[in-house]
């Protein structure tokens, strides 16, 4: 939804001779209104030979372009992260000022001040929380799984108490219903899901955007509860060296290196590297099991951008990762044969992703229909005809054992997408496209369990191979009336080789009632193909038989909701904000992993009855005195599912509420920054088999975080503490003494597993 507004700013003085060149300047306007000249923007005359006339703006955003052969002519400007547009230029025009607006799209560059760590974006079509670079720096934030501590929208927990796999919940539902995007490309799907949150280092990112509710049909049918989009450090920002070193009391050592450099006016690249080790084995609760597995990870990415003279943008990149986790009992010896005398876990992930995106500006917008010329022309010059082609390939290999249970899987995914974007006229934009996806899964589960009645172990192998081919067509229409009202309606139809037709309608509405009040609503459908084991990796860490009772169908859900954001003056803050939102997700089909029906088995079956989740949230933020920010947020969730033979029940291990208060104070010029976060995590329903002493709910518990950052020239030093009061879940592993019995269960995790974590780090940035 990027838009460009072109303004004719100067006119030729009658006293001067006609210049040989048309001169001007290209500015970028950030969502906050900051107007900054854009260097390396491409400017050219539109037309048959336009591309040959292209010039690039200099470091001050200025350009000088030879006059065209004929008048009137159309001048076009474009720049990465901003959409391109054109403007008719008359022959008496000598100076043109072009304003390229960063709009509300998720793929825009977020330019924010140091103080705004997390804010609710004002211009986005969906209710969107933006965690900025400053937000990513105010906590340890080693990876994205650790970046949501200031957000009440997202709860972060563990899938089990042995693998260290983090999982998020958005709108009261598992993270598998939230679509992860890497600069608007779907990422971390399939086998990458259970450990994917640790696959992107926080130091690689410029911002994270959390959009609640169904989004655009453009990125596929898979999103039900929201989208989390990761924006990487930009190749266009000339920072030849960024270095981040982190160390904590558990011995976790992490090094991140990033280098962004324009190689010419047209070619830009970013190199990102990460290496980390988590070598120390700790057992704080004395159950004989490591609190978290020992880990090591190496992760490399290289991203490129090429901007051609005619405005064509080519982006491509490659990412590769290897991660190994060793957990289980403290004295587990991997060199010994795996048998019932010891319990260990070993998880290896190998991930490769390559992508290419081509954006082609094809022409100017269709002329406005007669009679619409006087309509509020917010969209003037906004939409041009564009075409984009996106292709990517992902390989993921997961090798794992949990005691004697083994799960191995390999995934190949290829995606092809073509998009065409244009407009019927001012305020009436449309986008149509087609997509093809191939998923090849080769996966097998070797299940080993001890029956309740028997003494010996039983073994079963389940082949979970699956090939999917999905082809789809989609279209989206955007109606805008000024900045006031934007309605987006989309529809996609996909044909799935296993599940036949999927029809996905979605709509979003944003209405700015006034400058200080914005209302949003959205609704639509989302599907996903279940990956039984990786969606519920915690079941591997139990002593139970894993039983897939019936052929599992597509998961199908409708999500709708709305929000209101109000901005007002409070104390000396003229931009305090108060937001409320409500979302409901209702499943037509859901895959249920039921551990309460049969105490010896984990049952997987299709939903038969209702399953829904309602979430209510309120957010407040203000800056009562300069450089002191208060943010408070509260979320309440009511999530219920119909379980086999027991009917509708509250979903287990789902926190009923989360409240967060964050205080940040910075001294002048941000020399010192103090961050403090307090969380209250609500009770969760304990599964029936975990109820002890009549307590059916886990306790409400607080968590505290603090960090102090000192800025020097080119260098930030920080020290901090997570879990200040050292709160941990007591006995997170049920039946820890007999890990091969049906009573062994490490998937009942509702609280922190790690004790107080003290950490320190440095960030070094070299500017050009």
């Amino acid at each position, binding site marked *: 939804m990027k838009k460009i507004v072109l303004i004719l700013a100067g006119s030729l003085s009658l006293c001067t001779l006609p210049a040989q060149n048309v001169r001007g300047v290209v500015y*970028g306007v*950030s969502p*906050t*209104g*900051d*107007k*900054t*000249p*854009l*260097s390396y923007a491409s400017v050219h005359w539109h037309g048959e030979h336009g591309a040959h006339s292209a010039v690039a703006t200099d*470091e*001050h*955003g200025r350009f000088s372009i030879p006059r065209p052969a004929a008048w009137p002519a159309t001048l076009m400007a474009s720049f990465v992260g901003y959409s391109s547009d054109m403007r008719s230029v008359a022959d008496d025009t000598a100076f043109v000022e072009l304003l390229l607006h960063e709009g509300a799209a998720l793929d825009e560059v977020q*330019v*924010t*001040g140091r103080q705004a760590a997390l804010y609710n974006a004002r211009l986005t079509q969906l209710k969107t929380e933006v965690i900025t670079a400053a937000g990513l720096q105010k906590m340890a934030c080693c990876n994205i799984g650790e970046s949501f501590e200031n957000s009440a929208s997202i709860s972060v927990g563990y899938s089990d108490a042995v693998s260290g796999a983090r999982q998020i919940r958005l709108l009261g539902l598992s993270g598998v219903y939230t679509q992860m995007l890497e600069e608007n490309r779907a990422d971390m799907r399939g086998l990458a899901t259970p450990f994917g949150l640790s696959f992107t280092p926080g130091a690689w990112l410029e911002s994270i955007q959390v959009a609640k509710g169904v989004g655009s049909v453009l990125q596929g049918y898979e999103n039900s509860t929201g989208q989390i989009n990761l924006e990487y450090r930009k190749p266009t*920002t*000339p*920072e030849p060296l960024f270095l981040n070193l982190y160390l904590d009391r558990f011995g976790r050592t992490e090094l991140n290196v990033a280098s962004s450099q324009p190689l010419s006016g047209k070619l830009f690249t970013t190199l990102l590297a990460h290496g980390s080790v988590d070598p120390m084995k700790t057992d704080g609760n004395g159950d004989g099991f490591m609190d978290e597995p020992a880990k090591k990870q190496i992760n490399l990415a290289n991203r490129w951008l090429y901007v051609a003279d005619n405005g064509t943008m080519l982006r491509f990149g490659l990412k590769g990762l290897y991660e190994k986790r060793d957990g289980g009992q403290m004295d587990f010896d991997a060199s010994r044969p795996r048998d019932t005398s010891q319990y260990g876990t070993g998880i290896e992930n190998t991930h490769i992703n390559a992508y290419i995106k081509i954006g082609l500006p094809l022409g100017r917008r269709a002329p406005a229909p007669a009679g619409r010329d006087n309509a509020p022309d917010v969209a003037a010059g906004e939409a041009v005809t564009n075409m984009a082609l996106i292709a990517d390939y992902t390989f993921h290999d997961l090798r794992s054992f949990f005691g004697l249970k083994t799960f191995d899987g390999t995934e190949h995914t290829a995606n092809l997408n073509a998009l065409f974007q244009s407009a019927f006229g001012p305020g009436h934009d449309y986008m149509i496209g087609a997509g093809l996806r191939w998923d090849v899964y080769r996966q097998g589960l070797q299940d080993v369990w001890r029956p309740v009645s028997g003494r010996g172990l039983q073994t079963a192998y389940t082949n979970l191979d699956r090939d999917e081919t999905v082809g789809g067509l989609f279209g989206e229409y955007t109606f805008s009336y000024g900045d006031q009202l934007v309605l987006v309606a989309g529809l996609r139809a996909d044909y799935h080789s296993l599940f036949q037709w999927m029809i996905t309608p979605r709509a979003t509405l944003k209405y700015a009632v006034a400058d200080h009040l914005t209302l949003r609503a959205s609704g639509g459908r989302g599907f996903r193909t279940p990956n039984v084991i990786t969606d519920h990796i915690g079941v591997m860490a139990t002593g139970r038989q894993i039983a897939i009772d019936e052929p599992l169908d597509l998961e199908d859900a409708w999500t709708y909701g709305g929000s209101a954001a109000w901005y007002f003056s409070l104390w000396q803050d*003229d*931009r305090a904000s108060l937001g409320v939102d409500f979302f409901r997700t209702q499943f037509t089909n859901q895959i249920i992993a039921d551990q309460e029906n049969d105490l010896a088995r984990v049952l997987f079956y299709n939903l038969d009855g209702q399953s829904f989740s309602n979430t209510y949230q309120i957010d407040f933020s203000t*800056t009562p*005195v*300069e*450089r*002191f920010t208060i943010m408070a947020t509260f979320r309440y969730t009511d999530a219920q599912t119909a379980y086999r033979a027991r009917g509708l029940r509250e979903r287990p291990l789902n926190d009923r509420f989360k409240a967060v208060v964050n*205080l940040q*104070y910075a*001294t*002048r*010029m*941000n*020399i*010192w920054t*103090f961050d*403090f976060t307090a969380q209250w995590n609500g009770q969760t329903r304990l599964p029936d088999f975990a109820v002890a002493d009549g307590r059916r709910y886990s306790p409400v518990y607080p968590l*505290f975080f*603090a960090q102090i950052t000192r*800025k*020097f*020239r*080119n260098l930030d030093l920080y020290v901090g503490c997570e879990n*200040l*009061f*050292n709160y941990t879940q007591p006995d997170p592993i049920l039946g820890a003494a007999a890990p091969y019995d049906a009573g062994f269960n490490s998937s009942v995790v509702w609280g922190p597993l790690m004790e107080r974590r003290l950490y320190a780090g440095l960030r070094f*940035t070299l*500017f050009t």
Partner: protein
Amino acid sequence: MKKTLTCLLCSLLLTAGLADAQAQPKKNEAEVTFAVNMHCDHCKKKIENALPHEKGVVDMKVSLEKKEVWLKFRTDKTTKEALQKAIEKTGYTASEKTDDPTAKSAATKKP
């Protein structure tokens, strides 16, 4: 641990109070606004990285929109000329703005 928390909060509020107290103009402090040819967020970051660590600089606001850098400095430790050179050392041109009494308020305007 509760003590640690209390201490942290107290020190935070105390620091906030002290900072407010410092906001009152002092005898040996002066202000200056420079027009600087910044053109991108990166330029702003470069200036924000360098200038706070120049000798005598007490406070700074950078406005990309206005292309202004407002500085408060200790007159016994530095001069306008030295600050101008410090900005120029980061790769930009700087000239003192003397005709705009609203310079500071513009620079401090919230985004």
